[in-house]
């Protein structure tokens, strides 16, 4: 086994045990919410339009469903 694979396996075990670095929790939240690490909003799409680039789908629900099926879903905290 390669060392990076071993390190990865150890990290996966740590996550199962509940040890998730805060930065990774944030990334997981973003992936669940948008399907990407960086949100594409109307603002970004407007910039893309100005640059003659194709517009982006703002959310990708299928990613949420995948993460949800594996018990990784962390709902985006909203008001209420």
């Amino acid at each position, binding site marked *: 086994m*390669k060392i990076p694979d071993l390190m*990865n*396996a150890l*990290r*996966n075990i740590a*996550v199962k045990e509940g040890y*998730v*670095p805060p*930065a*990774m929790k944030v*990334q*997981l939240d973003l*992936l669940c919410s948008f*399907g*990407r*690490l*960086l*949100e*594409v909003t109307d603002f*970004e799409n407007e*910039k*893309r339009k100005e*640059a003659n*680039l*194709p*517009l*982006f*789908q703002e959310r*990708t629900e*299928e*990613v949420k*469903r*995948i*993460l949800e*099926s*594996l018990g*990784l879903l962390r709902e985006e905290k909203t008001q209420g």
Partner: protein
Amino acid sequence: MKKRLKDSAIPSEYALFLGCTVPVRAIHYEISARRVAERLDVQLSDISEFSCCGYPIKSLNHYAYLLMAARNLSLAEERGLSVCTLCSACCGALAEANHALQEDEDLRKRVNEDLFKRIGRRYEGSVRVTHFIRVLQEEVGEKKILSEIQTDLSALHVAPHYGCHITKPTTVYGRVEDPENPKSLDQLIEATGAHSISYEDKLQCCGGAVLAFDEGVALAMGRAKLDHIRARQADAIVLVCPFCNIMYESNQKKIEKVAQTEYKLPVLFYPQLLGLAMGLEPEELGIKMNRIKPTEMLKKIHGRAG
């Protein structure tokens, strides 16, 4: 060295995979890659349903990463397209998952059962994953690139930054070149007419991998490379990964503050350099979006400010 670039007359169509960073924080990379591809008859098609490649979740849950990668690959597969990425980490993540799914039938079966159950998709393993510079190097080839060169860049000395994911792992990419002594980016730079310089720790990571966890370490890694590149009096650093760009361009001011020094080292994506050599205007290559203005560099080329 240029002889090692292959020549090919078969440009192809690819699904352009942009990932998370390029469409938001590196639009200039996307703009320049699309312009250069157009000139070289490489067709880049868009799939709006593409998501994150899965790389960020790999260390949290390897299986979730495989499902996310397989989902993206299935989107390209149903259109009969190869995947071309601009981000080296996306390329590595998708290629590695692809390799695992192609090699391990039991794993592919399990992934497909879960994919189908959750989102009604399947991936049969027919897609090829590559990076834009590999398309230029292996499919477009030197002959075609040289035929498009219109501007003399011989006054420029630039530092290539390969980053971590473009040559490794060789078990996934094959030995397209020596991962400990890669030449492809140097050769592509030389093909533009600019000079590719050598410098200490050329293959060192940009530091981006630890940015979210220990900014001090990440900035120190970025600083070390900027010091080595400055020592060789480079006109710019040239790279092929949006995350490496975040370290060297977006964080250069932060590094300067920590190091109490000034680099003002322009950071170009390779398609921007190639586009300039092809005679495209800086505006067409998104150079106005570069945070560190390559004004002096452009003066060297055209005698004009950027």
